[in-house]
């Protein structure tokens, strides 16, 4: 049951991603992205990371994509409203992406990951995530956590500084 669901969702997700990068209208692209991200959240659920799924919806879909949509609205220009890459560009991109995909897939198939493994049950909960994030011990992530928070603060300020209108 879960497997069937996975393949369906995976198919949808890849299709959505392709739609995201291929669509001509940038706004639609953002909407497709939103779809892909939502599907990703469902993958997290399948993987037993419900908390992550929640964050995915909140941060990604709610924050980032909305930001993107705003940006698209703000920077509408006639020549780019429809982003039609030229054929050479498409071919080069496709060759690059496909060769990357095929080589990586081939490499993966050679690796031990390709073998079937018994899925162990997991019993992690939100609490343990929180503990890991704020743990000061050797397995804890408090330092990166603080760094990221600093980064976000800096980005916040930087965003304002860069994007504000220059005083006349």
């Amino acid at each position, binding site marked *: 049951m879960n497997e069937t669901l996975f393949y369906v969702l*995976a198919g949808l*997700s*890849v299709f959505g*991603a*392709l739609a*995201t*990068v291929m669509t001509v209208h940038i706004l639609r*692209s*953002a909407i497709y*992205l939103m779809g*892909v*991200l939502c599907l*990703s959240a469902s993958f*997290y659920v399948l*993987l*037993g*990371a419900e*908390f*992550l799924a929640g964050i*995915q919806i909140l*941060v*990604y879909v709610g*924050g*980032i994509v909305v*930001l*993107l949509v*705003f*940006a698209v609205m703000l*920077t509408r*220009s006639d*020549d*780019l409203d429809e*982003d039609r890459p030229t054929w050479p*560009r498409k071919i080069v*991109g496709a060759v*690059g*992406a*496909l060769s990357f*995909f095929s080589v990586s*897939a081939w490499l*993966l*198939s050679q690796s031990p*990951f390709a*073998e079937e*493994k018994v*899925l162990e049950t*997991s*019993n*992690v909960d939100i609490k*343990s*995530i929180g503990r890991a994030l704020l743990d000061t011990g050797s*397995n804890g*992530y408090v330092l990166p956590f603080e760094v*990221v928070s600093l*980064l*976000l603060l800096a*980005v916040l300020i*930087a*965003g304002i500084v*860069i994007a504000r209108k220059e005083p006349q």
Partner: protein
Amino acid sequence: MLFHWVLLSLALFSVGIYGVLTRRNAVGLLISVELMLNAAAINLVVFNRYVAPAQVDGQVMAIFVMALAAAEVLVGMAILVMLFRKRKSADVTKMMGLRH
């Protein structure tokens, strides 16, 4: 099953690469990057689930990825908006001021 999960994230990542290589619009570019980041995040969680189910490190990493993605988009958009104000265009192929 793990292989298929990884294949999924690889597929999403490759599609992201395609987008990065073809998009001319800076916003489109960022969207593609988001796709790739998302694929990476999925990968992290998958490996967390299949390799070390008792731990949460993969999930924590995924959270960091999201945070960084947010930061990146924010800065990217800020630069974009400013550039757009100056050049009235978001076409990255025309942004080559650092080349010469």
